[in-house]
């Protein structure tokens, strides 16, 4: 059967909404916060840290059916130095905790963390001597996705929530005393 080959007019492409600002003919004035936030939110580079079943759900999220790329995360970067968004999917054993922390430390600011699933958020059913009771014991977390494991829609919802955080984040937040205090709580300089 012949497959139709059509010229791609990009009819379905939608553009990110223009941020608030003052517009006139041939110019637009807005805040750096808004423009940079817009750019960051729509090109988050994900770093998957998948250890168990939530990782399988995350693989489905990356795949063609759910297609994380629609939201600007086209490619997984398997190096922390290039990535903005750490996705922790799965049970983190206490022995794994220093490694997770090291991965977080290797990421450059600004960096965001999503805890996917019950285990990454709270230890889940593994209330045990060997399992870390939530990754927020070792690194700060921005978004928690509930579920055991969450469906891909849930993970996408978590990423959209994070995009809202990124869009509205002040450029000065990373230099604020509050943020430094938060990192100090985790012993991160």
């Amino acid at each position, binding site marked *: 059967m012949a497959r139709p080959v059509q010229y791609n007019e990009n009819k379905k492409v939608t553009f990110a909404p223009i941020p608030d600002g003052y517009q006139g003919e041939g110019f637009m004035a807005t805040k750096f916060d808004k423009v940079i936030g817009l750019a960051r939110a729509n090109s988050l580079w994900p770093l998957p840290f998948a250890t168990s079943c939530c990782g399988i759900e995350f693989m489905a999220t990356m795949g063609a059916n759910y297609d994380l790329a629609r939201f600007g995360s086209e490619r997984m970067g398997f190096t922390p130095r290039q990535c903005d968004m750490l996705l922790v999917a799965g049970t983190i054993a*206490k*022995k794994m905790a220093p490694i997770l922390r090291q991965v977080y430390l290797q990421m450059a600011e600004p960096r965001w963390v999503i805890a996917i699933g019950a285990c990454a958020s709270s*230890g889940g059913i593994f*209330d*045990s*001597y*060997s*399992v870390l*009771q939530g990754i927020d014991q070792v690194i700060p977390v921005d978004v928690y996705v509930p579920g055991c494991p969450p469906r891909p829609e849930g993970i996408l919802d978590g990423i959209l929530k994070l995009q809202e955080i990124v869009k509205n984040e002040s450029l000065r937040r990373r230099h604020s005393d509050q943020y430094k205090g938060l990192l100090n709580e985790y012993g991160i300089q």
Partner: protein
Amino acid sequence: MTNQEIKQLLSERFPELSEWEESYGMLTFRVPPDRNLEIANAIFHDEQLQFRFLTDITAVHYPDRVGEELCVVYHFHNLVDNVRIRMKTYVPVSQPDVFSLAPLFAGANWMERETYDFYGVNFIGHPNLTRILNVDEMDYFPMRKEYPMEDPTRRDKDDEMFGRG
């Protein structure tokens, strides 16, 4: 080779073996803790027995059996006749010393490290008796019965939340 034949061969050679039983068809016996390597060596090299595959090493903690709280369990497999046996030895939790089987079976190395990691059994003669699965900083043996399974650092899981308060 039947269990009866194995039992006869073994008890003729080692009269000190005791507590013979067959749970689910698997021949089980008890050895004194200072003889485990010698007996494992004998059943390895015996022409008839030839138990040359060490399937498993583990331990059990019986807090009520005073003086013999820790039971170290070995599973052997005769690959020629497809027969399995289980060897047990009991040691006090205050001095849990048994000989290491690592000189005889290379596979005993990691299994003994695991048994040490969770129960604190001291395998004399082991080349590197350190923790293998738990974090190196752990200062107790988590599978001993006096320690609760739950994570002790967790504060949000109080009994009130589960209707037990």
